């Protein structure tokens, strides 16, 4: 028994024995193996001698006892040991890598995502996952693309390497935690131990990069570093971090034609999300108590998803921005002026697009149901025989009420449809909305 386990070796938890089938990964702390027990396959992380510490053991024990915050987590199921006292490990569920892509591989360019919906859904679920973790009094410490997996055909996510997780009360800064580019500035500078607050910084980096690809702090300053080493990174991410779109400090803008992939995305994003990212990477950069919280991200991301519309010239996806209605942009794909808007639904201060293929969850229309973003609440339905007539179909158990053109009051239950009409007011269960039909802007 040693740092590496050979095929056929047995290890055991209190309850089960596991047979090592093959090595499936390796890292600084040890190796990961495919193991089998009672006909079920699992992943086993086996710590090398240096990492097989008492603290690590207690840490995993705590996580096993607490249990996973939700099904988004590839959580330790049991501690296992072999013949030697020098090493131990833990078993966890196996990740279906046919379905899920590790985000490092996504950012390495292995797959391209064509539509925004699933990308935004993945962002929402990532934010929600860390929210669940933080609510159980834990912090992750090393949020990065290396431990996030996304199914880009559904937006489902998995958070793995959860042996990074610990109780959110660390004070020591002698051990460095984190991955470059994701660590909060105060962690990079060695002033603070990782915490929920520093996780929130890492989360904002993940979300910015999911939507813009480029790193929020990697502009001109990073581009001009020839050989990047420890000191260069401490300066870039710790001592002098500057957001590439900082509204005042323009010294770290993307480098035209060389490192400017974010520009194409930033220009089409609605103002509210740009403002949120600006907040995250200006105020939130330096003040751990003013970081954007997960619920705020989730609300904004839901709004971003509900702002998706199409360019009626080329079919590309665009975002509606009420602040830009009077100065229309050209579609970045076909370069024609964006002049046609789809029907919209206004609920309080939210404007939700009603595209031909829109499906909305309760979270997108009801402020009080932020986390209810998975089940469909309503969808746009086109009349099968009269394609010029669009309606919204009730997919919920709420009873909707509206008044028709001739003054008749009607109720619509599940699977019923309300035809869209300019100015139509609708009472959905606990909230009200008004429809505005598609317009052609001048």
């Amino acid at each position, binding site marked *: 028994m040693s740092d590496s386990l050979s095929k056929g070796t047995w290890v055991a938890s209190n309850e089960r024995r596991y047979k090592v089938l093959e090595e499936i990964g390796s890292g600084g*702390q040890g190796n990961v193996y495919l193991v089998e027990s009672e006909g079920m396959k699992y992943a086993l992380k086996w710590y090398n001698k240096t990492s097989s510490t008492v603290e690590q053991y207690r840490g995993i024990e705590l996580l096993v006892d607490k249990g996973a915050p939700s099904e988004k987590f590839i959580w330790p199921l049991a501690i296992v040991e072999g013949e030697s006292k020098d090493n131990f490990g833990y078993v966890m569920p196996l990740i279906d890598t046919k379905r899920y892509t590790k985000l490092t591989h996504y950012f390495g360019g292995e797959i391209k995502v064509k539509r925004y919906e699933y990308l935004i859904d993945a962002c929402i679920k990532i934010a929600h996952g860390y929210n669940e973790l933080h609510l159980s009094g834990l912090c992750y410490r090393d949020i990065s693309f290396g431990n996030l997996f996304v199914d880009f055909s559904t937006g489902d996510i998995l958070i793995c390497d959860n042996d990074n997780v610990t109780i959110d009360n660390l004070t020591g800064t002698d051990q460095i935690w984190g*991955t470059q580019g994701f660590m909060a500035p105060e962690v990079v500078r060695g002033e603070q131990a990782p915490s929920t607050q520093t996780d929130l910084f890492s989360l904002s980096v993940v979300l910015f990069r999911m939507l813009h690809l480029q790193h929020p702090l990697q502009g001109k300053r990073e581009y001009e570093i*020839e050989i990047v080493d420890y000191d260069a990174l401490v300066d870039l991410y710790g001592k002098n971090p500057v957001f590439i779109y900082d509204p005042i400090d323009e010294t770290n803008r993307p480098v035209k*034609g060389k490192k*400017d*992939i974010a520009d194409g995305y930033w220009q089409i994003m609605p103002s509210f999300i740009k403002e949120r990212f600006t907040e995250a990477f200006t105020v939130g950069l330096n003040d751990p108590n003013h970081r954007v919280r997960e619920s705020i991200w989730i609300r904004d991301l839901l709004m971003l998803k509900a702002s998706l519309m199409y360019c009626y010239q080329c079919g590309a996806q665009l975002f509606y921005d009420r602040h830009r209605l009077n100065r229309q942009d050209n579609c970045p794909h076909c370069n024609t002026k964006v002049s046609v808007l789809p029907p919209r639904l206004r609920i309080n201060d939210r404007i939700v697009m009603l595209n031909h293929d829109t499906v909305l969850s309760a979270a997108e229309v009801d402020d009080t149901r932020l986390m209810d973003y998975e089940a469909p609440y309503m969808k746009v339905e086109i009349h099968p025989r009269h394609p010029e007539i669009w309606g919204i179909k009730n997919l919920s158990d709420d009873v909707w009420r509206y008044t028709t053109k001739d003054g008749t009051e009607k109720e619509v239950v599940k699977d019923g449809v309300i035809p869209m009409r300019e100015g139509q007011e609708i009472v959905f269960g606990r909230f009200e909305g008004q429809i505005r039909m598609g317009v052609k802007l001048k």
Partner: protein
Amino acid sequence: MMDRESRMGNRDLHLFFLIDASDSMSYGGKIETLNNAIRESIPHIREIARDAEGSIKVHALTFSTGARWVQKNVDIRDFTWENMTTKGVTDMGRGFELLAEKLENDFQGERGYQPVMILLSDGLPTDDYEAGLKKLKNTKWGAKAIRISIAIGSETDLDVLQAFIGDSFRGELKPLKAKNASELKNYIRWASTAASTASINPLKGMLPPPPAVTPESDVDEIDW
């Protein structure tokens, strides 16, 4: 959505192997083990490259009587290893010089992670290695490199290998002594993967220590 094209502005990691191909490397199957060990490390380096933004570019030179490039700037995804043959004396200094010349000429204005340089040797240099090493460390890329050395067999001059490492990685590294085939395999894999990881993520701190060799894997070893 946008195409990514080449606008990500990623940087590459350059990985250099400096390999002793002098006559003495032909004894006891050293060169054959080395050939295999490098081949075995390739998929592991590829895994690191998959997780990194930018790619890993591999370069290899051999020194014996004189020095020459055997691989130049090959993306790890396309990298294959040709068996090396041995002949002649140990002009290690010339090897350092050849690398210094390349860094001076081809790396002007390049962007990258800290390059990783791995020196593999079984013997005593027969030329003025100090002059060559000085030239290498005087280059911008040579000075910033993470330099690791692996001694093959027990005849090696460890002072030379320690001088190559110098203050690289805060002076915490020592030459690795590969006394047999399985140790050599382990060390080459460790040096190429752990050092690459440390280069890509310098904020993580220390290089993890090389793996302990397991008794089971010593069965098919060649004794040097």
